[in-house]
């Protein structure tokens, strides 16, 4: 008998006890089918209860993107990220200037997305854009040792907590937002959700997940030494987020 069979057999032997009986004061005389029916009714209600809980704590209708953008920025700053709003056409030059001022020399930028190409066109000569165009193992040491920054376009954002929803793929591999000491993310205000619950439902995560989905909020941190907060534990020490709003020039 395999471990799998032994474990499942033990679990099945313990049924059909319903856990609610233990909590709510059991009625041992209750018919089993009545209990099963009640369990079904509760199940149907579980998602509805979760939805109602989070919906009751959000505005209805949802706030417009510029309000969400302001919240996103404030939440990111509270999480010790640097965040700013920028217009569609102004962000590449602004970002390039900030990177130059911060002393960035090598930055991973893709060549496949419009945003990647815009940033590549905007960086000055002393910043080298690096393409992630081969498997990690072919340049692991180089990525860990020589790259200062990684640029990614977030799938969306969560305004309540300043969270970036990152869906790494062949164009934007997982390590771009993880290994370099500076992570630069671009997120469109139009993609912002009020909270995690809204993001999951609007993007229908339950219909299929990528191999890796990362919800990142600010730079890497730890309080493992005497409850003292320190940044750059293992992931990026600095996180910059450009929130692209449609309105030109609005800061």
């Amino acid at each position, binding site marked *: 008998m395999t471990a799998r069979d032994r474990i499942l057999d033990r679990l099945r032997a313990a049924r059909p006890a319903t*856990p609610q009986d233990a909590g709510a004061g059991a009625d041992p005389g209750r018919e089993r089918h009545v209990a099963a029916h009640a369990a079904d009714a509760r199940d149907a209600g579980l998602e509805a209860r979760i939805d109602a809980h989070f919906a009751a704590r959000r505005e209805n209708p949802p706030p417009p993107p510029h309000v969400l953008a302001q919240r996103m920025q404030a939440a990111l700053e509270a999480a010790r990220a640097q965040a700013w709003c920028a217009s569609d056409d102004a962000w590449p030059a602004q970002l390039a200037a900030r990177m130059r001022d911060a002393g960035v020399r090598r930055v991973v930028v893709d060549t496949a997305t419009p945003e990647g190409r815009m940033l590549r066109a905007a960086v000055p000569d002393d910043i080298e854009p690096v393409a992630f165009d081969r*498997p990690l193992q072919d340049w692991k040491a180089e990525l860990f040792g020589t790259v200062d920054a990684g640029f990614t376009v977030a799938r969306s954002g969560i305004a309540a907590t300043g969270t970036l929803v990152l869906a790494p793929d062949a164009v934007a591999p997982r390590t771009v937002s993880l290994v370099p000491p500076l992570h630069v993310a671009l997120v469109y205000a139009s993609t912002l959700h009020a909270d995690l619950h809204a993001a999951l439902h609007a993007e229908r995560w339950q219909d299929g997940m990528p191999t890796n*989905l990362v919800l990142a909020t600010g730079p890497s941190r730890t309080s493992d030494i005497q409850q003292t907060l320190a940044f750059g534990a293992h*992931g990026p020490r600095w996180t910059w987020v450009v929130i692209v709003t449609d309105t030109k020039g609005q800061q």
Partner: protein
Amino acid sequence: MTASPMHFMPPQDFHARSRAALDDPHLRQSFKGAMAFLQDKRRSQFGDDDELQRLRDLGEAVRQNALAKLPALLEQLEATLTAAGARVHWAATPEEANAIIHGIAVARGARRVVKGKSMASEEIELNHYLEARGVACLESDMGEYIVQLAGEKPSHIVMPAIHKTRADIGRLFADHIPGTAYTEDVDRLIQTGRHTLRQAFVDADIGLSGVNFAAADTGTLWLVENEGNGRLSTTVPDTHIAIMGIEKVVEKLEHIVPLASLLTRSATGQAVTTYFNLISGPRREGELDGPRELHLVLLDNGRTQAYADEELRATLQCIRCGACMNHCPVYARIGGHAYGTTYPGPIGAILSPHLLGLESTADLATASSLCGACGDVCPVRIPIPKLLVRLRTEANRDPRAEVEHPLKGQGAKYSRGERMVWRFWSGAFARPGAYRTFRWAATRLRALAPKDQLGWTRYRTPLEPAPRSLADLLRARGQPL
């Protein structure tokens, strides 16, 4: 620092270690400060009590729903993950789990494992098992790294090095990491840890992690962390092995939303942690990084014993936030190492007997004043005080008594003498005639009360009956009962 290495220390020595911890002012100061800090952080997240109570209701409902369907959900999780290209393994015992993981390492010729935080791997003593077979294991969570360097075990499930001061860690790093000068500057200490561990991520053949939640519907492993070492461990090495207790699965991905909120706010007082790392399969064709192999080890190790009993099953609702420890007056004074178990504090007292048997853990349930703080803060409403009382009952039950769901080590604290005293006591109180005789004898013969009253007189003066009973005194005042 007086905390000694905890490897393979039997939990039976709980009393001796508690005594030693209480006599260590340095340790008590560390825990006092840390507990106050964590309580404040949690409180700052739950300003709206109505929201908290409703969220706790949801958390409890999600976990109970999952436990009610546990066998089916485990099979569903296995099916969805397998379809995504992962391999799912089942381990009934720590030995089986260790052998599975070692087998994967051997098959890949792996010599180096880098670890994200995993209490399940602590539970099975994985590091020791692999090291003995020539596979090096390096902990990469800062707190875990610190306790590994010190040759200790975690003293808290969320903050493993909570018993250490920055000075302790400064000395530890100076002594163990070549070229490191002593400092108490936390930023510099963390940067030292970062640089030391960075190469380990590059060199590791296998990354090993725990799992905070698993969703059966999408086959998603949901990992919660702040440092990024979990992401590195699950991303950079070619093979990722995740290990989780069988109780961690929930039915749907959307069910994790309230649990994640409860976990981070209860554990560290954060609205979210820096990373929620959601893994639903190994690297796909065309992807340039991420592990090529993903393994999930499902660990029983006594959980099915708790599951068998309707009341004790609530133990498995736990999401490992540590709030019960942070609010426990006993844990705050003796610290995590005194328990001698992987999971200390109130959750450890109710979980460890299923993992290890009552023979070595029966004392843990008695290390509680039943003040109820643990139950009040539990984000998934586990009735911890009730379960502590239940485990005391099981520990004192006649070992030969036949019950529906016998626990491993039933009757570990059973004493025939004590049982006789209680039988006499209940007999005397159940019969008026016998009670009157007992009362008369106890008050008139009070001088014969023993001076040594076992556990009671270890810390207190002996009990002595009053010269006259309350009933006698009332009768003397003309107020017969």
